[in-house]
C-alpha cells in the first residue's frame, strides 16, 4: 500500500519555513491582487472556485478514495444550502405561525451552529443514500446516485404545497449573509484601517475551510480508514477477506463525503443570500465529478487543480471569446457563447485523451497505468 498522504506531509515538512510563509502571504494577498489587476468579478470567480474545491474534495473521498461512482453529489450541497436558508431567513416564520411564536426575533442561525448542523444532516443523507446501495457496483451505483440527486431536487422544487416548506421553484430569498460574531461578511469592513470588501472576506472564510478540509483529507488518506477505502477501491472482495468491515467503511465514505458537501452548501446559501432548486441540477453533479476526474482522482493537489481549472476556464472563455475572435478574424464569426461551450467540451476531451489519469494524478496511479499500457501494447 503506498502512502500518498504521507508523501505530501513529508513534502510540506521538507520545505524551508520561508516557503510556507511565502505561500501563506501569496494566498492572503491573492484577492487584492486579483481585484486590482482584473476587477472584483474575478475575486467572485475565486470565491466560487474555492466552494468548488470544497465540493470536489468531498466527492474525492467517495469517488477518489473509496472508488464509489456518485452522480448525485449535488444533493448534499442542496441539503446544506437549504438548511442554512431555512434557519436564517424569514421564510419559515412567514409560513408557520408556530415557528414565529417560538422565535419572536426572527430566525438568524449562527454560522458556528449551522455549518456543523449542515455537515451532520448531509452526512445522514449520505448514509441514507449509501445504505440501500451497498451491494451495487460501478455503473449501477452511478444511476442510483443520479436518481437520488434528482429525488432531492424534485422534493426541493415541490415542497411548497400543501404546506410551504421550501417555497418551490421560486426559491428562498432574504437569507442572512454570514456573520462571524459581530463581523458581517456581506458588506465592506474596516479591518486595521484597511477597507476589505465583502468578496474578500468571503474569500478568507472559504479559504480557511478549504485548508481545514485539506488537512482532514490528508489525515484521512493516511489513516486506517483511508487505507481501508483504497483497499475497497482496488478489490472489494480482497478487502473483505482482509477483515475490513466493508459495509461500515463504505457508509463512512458516503457520510464523510456528504458532510463536506453540506458545509459547502451552507456557505453557498450565506454567500448568495438566495437558494433555489436551479442551483442543484444533475449537470452540477456532473461538473463536480469532471473536476475530480480531470484533476486526478484520489490526489488532493490534482483535485484542487481540476476544480480551479474547470471554474476558471469557462470564465476565461467568457472573457476572451469575443476579443480573440476579433484579433484573429477582425470580426465575431461564431456567437461567443456557443464558442465558449465548444471550447469547454473540447477541453474535456483533449485533456482526458492526453492525460487519462488526470492532469496531476497520484504517482502510484500513473505508474499503474503505464504498466497496463505496456502490457496492452
Amino acid at each position, binding site marked *: 500500500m503506498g502512502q500518498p498522504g504521507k508523501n505530501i506531509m513529508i513534502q510540506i515538512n521538507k520545505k524551508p519555513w520561508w516557503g510556507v510563509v511565502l505561500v501563506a502571504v501569496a494566498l492572503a494577498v491573492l484577492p487584492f491582487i486579483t481585484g486590482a489587476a482584473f476587477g472584483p468579478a474575478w475575486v467572485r470567480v475565486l470565491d466560487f472556485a474555492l466552494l468548488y474545491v470544497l465540493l470536489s474534495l468531498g466527492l474525492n473521498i467517495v*469517488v477518489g478514495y473509496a472508488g464509489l*461512482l456518485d452522480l448525485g453529489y449535488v444533493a448534499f450541497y442542496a441539503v446544506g444550502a437549504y438548511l442554512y436558508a431555512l434557519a436564517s431567513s424569514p421564510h419559515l416564520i412567514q409560513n408557520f405561525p408556530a415557528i414565529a411564536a417560538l422565535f419572536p426575533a426572527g430566525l438568524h442561525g449562527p454560522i458556528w451552529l449551522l455549518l456543523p448542523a449542515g455537515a451532520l444532516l448531509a452526512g445522514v443523507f449520505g448514509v441514507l443514500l449509501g445504505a*440501500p*446501495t451497498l*451491494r*451495487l*457496483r*460501478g*455503473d*449501477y451505483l*452511478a*444511476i*442510483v446516485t*443520479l*436518481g*437520488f440527486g*434528482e*429525488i432531492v431536487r*424534485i*422534493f426541493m*422544487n*415541490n415542497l411548497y404545497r*400543501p404546506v410551504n416548506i421550501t417555497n418551490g421553484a421560486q426559491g428562498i430569498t432574504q437569507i442572512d449573509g454570514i456573520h462571524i460574531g459581530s463581523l458581517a461578511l456581506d458588506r465592506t469592513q474596516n479591518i486595521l484601517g484597511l477597507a476589505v470588501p465583502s468578496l474578500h472576506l468571503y474569500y478568507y472564510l472559504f479559504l480557511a475551510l478549504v485548508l481545514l478540509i485539506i488537512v482532514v483529507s490528508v489525515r484521512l488518506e493516511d489513516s486506517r480508514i483511508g487505507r481501508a477505502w483504497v483497499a475497497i477501491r482496488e478489490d472489494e472482495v480482497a478487502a473483505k477477506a482482509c477483515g475490513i468491515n466493508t459495509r461500515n467503511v463504505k457508509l463512512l465514505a458516503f457520510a464523510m463525503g456528504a458532510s463536506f458537501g453540506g458545509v459547502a452548501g451552507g456557505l453557498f446559501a450565506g454567500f448568495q443570500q438566495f437558494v433555489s432548486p436551479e442551483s442543484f441540477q*444533475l449537470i452540477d453533479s*456532473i461538473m463536480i*465529478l*469532471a473536476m475530480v*476526474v*480531470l484533476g486526478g*482522482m484520489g490526489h488532493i493537489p490534482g483535485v484542487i487543480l481540476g476544480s480551479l481549472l474547470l471554474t476558471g476556464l469557462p470564465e476565461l472563455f467568457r472573457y476572451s471569446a469575443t476579443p480573440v475572435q476579433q484579433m484573429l478574424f477582425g470580426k465575431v464569426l*461564431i456567437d461567443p457563447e*456557443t464558442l465558449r*461551450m*465548444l471550447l*469547454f*467540451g*473540447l*477541453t*474535456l*476531451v483533449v485533456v*482526458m*485523451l492526453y492525460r*487519462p*489519469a488526470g492532469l496531476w494524478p497520484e504517482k502510484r*496511479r500513473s505508474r499503474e*497505468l503505464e504498466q*497496463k*499500457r505496456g502490457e*496492452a501494447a
Partner: protein
Amino acid sequence: METLLQQIINGIVLGAVYALVALGYTMVYGILGLINFAHGEVVMVGAMVTLAVIKLLAGTGLPLVVQLLIGLAVSIPACMALGAGIERVAYRPLRNAPRLAPLITAIGVSIILQYLVVLVWGRTYHPYPELLPTTPFDLAGARISPAQVAIIFFSALVMAGLLWLVHHTRLGRAMRATAENPVVARLMGVNVNHVVTMTFAIGSALGAVAGVLVSINYSVAHYQMGFILGLKAFTAAVLGGIGNLGGAMVGGLLLGLIEALGSGYVGDLTGGLFGSNYRDVFAFLVLIVVLIFRPSGLLGERVAERA
C-alpha cells in the same frame, strides 16, 4: 376504464421509445462495459438531420412518407458514421485508461455535439412536420395515433432483428465473443475493433430512427432533446439489466408504464399530496427497490445473452 386503457397505451408508447434508445446504450455497455453518454446526442442529431433534409425536399411535392424515407436514408448513415467516429476519437484511445476517463470525454463530446447543432440550426425548438397520418385509431374509447403505432411496431421489429443478429450471424457471434472476453476473442481471430465499430454504428442507426420517431410523435425537435431522453433510456437499460438486449426492452416498457401510471394515479391515491410533479421520484424509487433485490437489474444475470 377508458382512462386506464389510455394511460397504458401512453406508457407503452413512451416505453417503446425508451427501449429503442436504451438498446444503443446496452449494446455498447455489453461489449465494452462503457456508458456511452453521448448516445442521446446521436439521437438528437438523427432527428435534426432528417428535419433538415425534409425542409430541403419541402418544395418537391413528393409524398410525405417518401420524404421521410429519404430523410432517414441520409440521417441513418450520417449517425452511423458519427457513432463510429465518436468511438474512434473519444473512446478507443482510452480503452485501457481508468474507468472514468471515457465518461468525461463522453460528456465533452455531448457538449460539443449540442453546440455544433446550435451553430448550424440555432437554439429554437423546431416544429416537426407531420410525416405520418394523424387521424388516431379508436381503441375502446382510448386513442392511438399512427406515429405511436409505428413506434411500437418498429421497436418490436428492431428487437427481433437484433436478437437474430446477435444469435444467428457471424458478426453476432463475434460480438458475443468480444463481450465475453476481448483478449481471448482476439486470439480466436475476431477483429475486436471492427466488432466495436459495428456495435456503435448499429446502435447509432437505431438511435437516429428513434430520434425521428420521437420528434414526429411529439412534433418538436431541438438541440437539447437528447439529454433527458438519453438519461431516461439509460435508466431503463439499468433497470432491465444493462448489457442485456431483452433487459433494455423490459426496462424501457416498465419505466414508461411507471411514469404514465405514476403521474396518472398516485396524485389521486394520495389525495393530491404526491402528484405528477413526483413522476421521476416514482421512477427512481422503483429502480432503487429493484436494484436492492436484484443488484444487476431485472434480467441482468443471464450473461449468456449479453450482446
